[in-house]
């Protein structure tokens, strides 16, 4: 989860109130953010991914100051209309439609940047890129010093070789394709433009390239310094609503730093027509709220005034006449009334809720196969066996090779395991027990173990193409173990389950030839057992004779319940 670094003194100024460390800790976590640490003036907070508006110091303080009651209700942000609004225009050409169709833009003036503030803005931009922007896949943000730019601006797509500018931190001019091939940031994000024959660019009135989104800004026109007083901001991507929200998060943060927001006109060429849109749009959305629904979900009796008060503590406005909630334009997480209901509960305080167990009559019921498995486990424990639990993830060496199975036997394979040696799902459980024996050769013998686990096998008939077979495996390792020791276990188990089984000679690569048998109940083969082949023991580095058994529990369950 992304974190925000806050300075306590600045936070206090923004909050308009002083809190002790304890109070801060408590309030921050009860607001629905995770406090990582408070050390003197440094506060580090984790912000959940649904609240990108809290990723800046200003945004965080805004939410917290409402929550603690210092500054509640909807914040008003003034949007200035530029005098020469013709110049405050971004022309969007049809050529961007395929590669990156939308943008939302703004200008913010009267900024007083210093190193600290520039760092903050760059951080906010990066965090928005990573979280809300899904690593620039969904959206990319550019911020430019206005004094280097000649308005109006054009957003268009060009062939890579037609694009020529000096990207940030590069020694000289590069073409679009060169940037993707050799600039470090270009290489990192090249996949986002893969397959397109034209790349998007922002250019100014003098045809100077500002940036090639979502990759990189121009070194000349796209670098904010502490002399910068006015900035041009653009967000580009695929979902205009999301771009607006992102732009709003940035401009409101800048406004709280003292900036003045100026609107821009987006002109989209659509055939002969020109569609005009103004951004940023900071008008709150008005939502009807069903207070009955809220009360029902929360489980509290609340009057409308109380609901209004609680909403205001979460930074919303409330219109008494229309009974509507005014949702700030920087909130991205309100999809449904339930989101408002939750915020009302958070404002009320999770710590204040009284837990209640309703008197609802339902019958408890254990899954019958699970009951059956437990019974089997208890029978085996009665025979002195010790239960193990091992991982379902395994590898071919253990599952096939060491057990002398055909190395080409098909298994369910994982695409991307980060753990070496865990690349398949085990197809049977006995190899896991052999692995356990091999890791316990320094422990006291006899070692008599069992495990109730799952075997994963490829199947045409199931939803996933994989069948998950419940299985029982048993091993007995001791100096005098022989076929009798394992046959006794099988006999005793079947007898306890009131099944009449027969044992038939069989061959299986993991067992000694002539000392291996299949277990058959009512003409159904339910398992295999025998003396473990010495080559298998050697493969696992075990110097103690052993016997093993593997049963298909589902087949046995079906036989028992028939």
């Amino acid at each position, binding site marked *: 989860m992304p974190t925000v670094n806050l300075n306590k003194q600045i936070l206090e100024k923004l909050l308009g109130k002083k809190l002790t460390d304890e109070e801060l800790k408590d309030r921050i976590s009860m607001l*629905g953010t995770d406090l990582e640490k408070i050390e003197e003036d440094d506060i580090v907070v984790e912000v959940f991914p649904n609240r990108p508006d809290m990723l800046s110091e200003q945004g965080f303080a805004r939410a917290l100051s409402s929550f603690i009651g210092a500054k509640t209700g909807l914040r008003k942000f003034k949007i200035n209309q530029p005098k020469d609004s013709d110049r405050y225009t971004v022309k969007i050409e049809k050529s961007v439609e395929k590669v990156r169709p939308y943008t939302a833009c703004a200008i913010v003036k009267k900024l007083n940047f210093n190193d600290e503030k520039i760092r903050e803005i760059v951080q906010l931009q990066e965090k928005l890129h990573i979280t809300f922007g899904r690593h620039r896949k969904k959206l990319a943000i550019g911020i430019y010093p206005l004094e280097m730019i000649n308005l109006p601006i054009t957003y268009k797509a060009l062939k890579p070789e037609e694009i020529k500018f000096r990207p940030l931190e590069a020694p000289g001019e590069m073409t679009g394709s060169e940037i993707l091939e050799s600039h470090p940031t270009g290489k990192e994000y090249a996949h986002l433009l893969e397959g397109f024959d034209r790349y998007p660019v922002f250019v100014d009135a003098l045809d100077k390239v500002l940036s090639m989104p979502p990759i990189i800004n121009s070194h000349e026109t796209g670098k904010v310094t502490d002399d910068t007083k006015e900035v041009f901001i653009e967000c580009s991507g695929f979902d205009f609503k999301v771009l607006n929200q992102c732009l709003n998060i940035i401009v409101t943060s800048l406004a709280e730093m003292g900036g003045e927001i100026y609107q821009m006109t987006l002109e989209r060429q659509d055939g002969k027509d020109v569609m005009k849109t103004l951004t940023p749009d900071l008008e709150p959305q008005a939502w009807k709220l069903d207070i009955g629904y809220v009360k029902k979900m929360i489980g509290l009796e609340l009057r409308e005034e109380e609901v209004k008060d609680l909403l205001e503590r979460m930074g919303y406005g409330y219109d008494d006449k229309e009974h509507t909630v005014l949702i700030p334009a920087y909130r991205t997480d309100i999809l449904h009334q*339930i989101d408002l209901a939750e915020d009302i*509960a958070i404002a009320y305080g999770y710590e204040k809720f009284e837990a209640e167990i309703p008197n*609802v009559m339902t019958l*408890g019921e254990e*899954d019958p196969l699970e009951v059956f498995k437990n019974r089997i486990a208890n029978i085996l424990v009665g025979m002195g066996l010790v239960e193990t639990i091992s991982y379902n993830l395994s590898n071919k060496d253990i599952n096939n090779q060491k057990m002398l199975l055909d190395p080409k036997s098909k298994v369910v394979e994982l695409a991307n395991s980060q753990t070496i040696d865990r690349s398949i799902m085990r197809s049977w459980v006995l190899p896991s027990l052999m692995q356990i024996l091999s890791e316990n050769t320094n422990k006291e013998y006899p070692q008599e*173990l069992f495990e109730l686990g799952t075997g994963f096998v490829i199947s045409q008939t199931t939803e996933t193409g*994989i069948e998950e077979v419940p299985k029982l495996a048993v091993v007995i390792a001791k100096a005098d173990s022989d076929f009798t020791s394992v046959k006794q276990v099988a006999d005793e188990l079947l007898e306890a389950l009131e099944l009449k089984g027969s044992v038939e000679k069989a061959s299986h690569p993991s067992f000694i030839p002539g000392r291996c048998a299949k277990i058959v109940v009512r003409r159904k083969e339910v398992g295999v057992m025998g003396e473990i082949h010495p080559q298998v023991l050697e493969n696992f580095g075990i110097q103690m004779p052993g016997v093993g058994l593997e049963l298909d529990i589902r087949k046995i369950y079906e036989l028992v319940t028939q």
Partner: protein
Amino acid sequence: MTSEKVQELGESLHPLERKVLPALKKHEKLSDIVRESGLLEVEVMRAVQWLQAKEVLHLKEFVKEVLELGSNGQKALANGLPERIFLKAIEEEAKNRDDLKAASGLSDEEVNACVGVLRGKAAINISQGPVFMITEHGKTLLQKDTPEEALLKKISQKEVSPSNLKDLEKLAFSNLKKRKDLIVAAIKKEWTITLTPAGKSLVKLDLKDDLIEKLTPEMLASGSWKDKKFRSYDVEAVVPKKARGKRHFWNQAKQSAKSIWLDMGFKEMTGNHIQTSFWNFDALFTAQDHPVREMQDTFFISEPKEGKLPDDACVEAVKAVHENGGDTGSTGWNYRWNPEEAKKNVLRTHTTCLSARTLARMKEESIPMPAKYFIVGKVFRNETMDWSHLFEFSQVDGIVVDENANFRHLLGYLKSFFKKMGYEEARFRPAYFPYTEFSVEIDVFHPKHKKWFELGGAGIFRPEVVKPLLGIDVPVLAWGPGFDRIIIDYFKITDIRELYKNDVKQLREMKEWMRL
């Protein structure tokens, strides 16, 4: 020690101790006691060590030099020294070298050695041939043991120290020492035993010999036990561990957690470990570009890569809710939902996917509300293992599908569960999950560490989850805290990998789940 105590002690003696006792009266050296008692040295040692523990005697170890027979010495003891064999062979008549060898069985080397020794003692004459003849002196020598033979005999009978030899023996010792493998001087450990006052009174006791050591079927048949006493045992003595069969401790805890939910009227859910992304993510309103669906977090299956989607109505409803909220009153995530993405097989990242399936099944089978379900099961995350992370771990999931359920009920169910799992105090903080709203993080208070511990998430399923699956929008309380983290404290495990290590010793010795 009072005389009653000594008497009591006498009656509880082990048979070995009892056998050693008479010898203790006469001897101080362990080796002497061994000889006297007729027991093996290890048995005597065990007995005197037990007696020492009972404060009957003190045992002191020292080192001594003793003479022992070598391999040829053993032979000589049985058959006499080679010179005796030599003389015997010519006692009746003189013999040449070949006849002598045939009669005596001596080797050339031995014959040569004997000739030297016997000539020195004037026991033989040698005439042309050469032919060996016995002298009169030789004949007298045959009548009795040589000093060398006497020494060998002495060594075989009792302990002889080289420092305690008489003059004649000293000469014999130096002769024997020169010859191969007849005699060796060895360093040996010896123990001396001194009786304590209690020991002195103990050895004087007249202990009956017919105490019953072990009751046998024969005794019961004949009734012979009736007029006898039983030897008392040291019942406080430590005995070897008894091996027993055992459920895995994790399963013991799981059974206990299961019965908590069963008691509260919950039905158990089960289901596959491998699910399509549809059930693991899409049905739970997790957008297809959500980071959790990337390769570094989730295990995808490469073979077989894809599964089948459920019936069209269900898929359409889920698609609509992602794209525009469908009929739930939600805005949705506002993107093009891709059915191919939903087909991808994954190892379930949470058992919550089974809660989603249960909602769909309730609709399919028209299962009436209220309904409550739970599962304790394995889940998988593509993480590298360390002390607090496993790629395969477990979760306890539950849902309550109830028209009248609310947020306070959620807290109620969770508090009851955690209380029964041993956590008296639980608190709830706001949290975020894509499929719940409200969302809470559960903390429990650790009474020993005096700290709050985060144990996992819970909430109320979003309408965007419930309505497409169940067909109607009712509150569904849901939770899925990690189960391993809940139980490790009870087993005093700090490294979570210990849970599934399958160390046979640990499995045998781990304490039983005794809660409830």
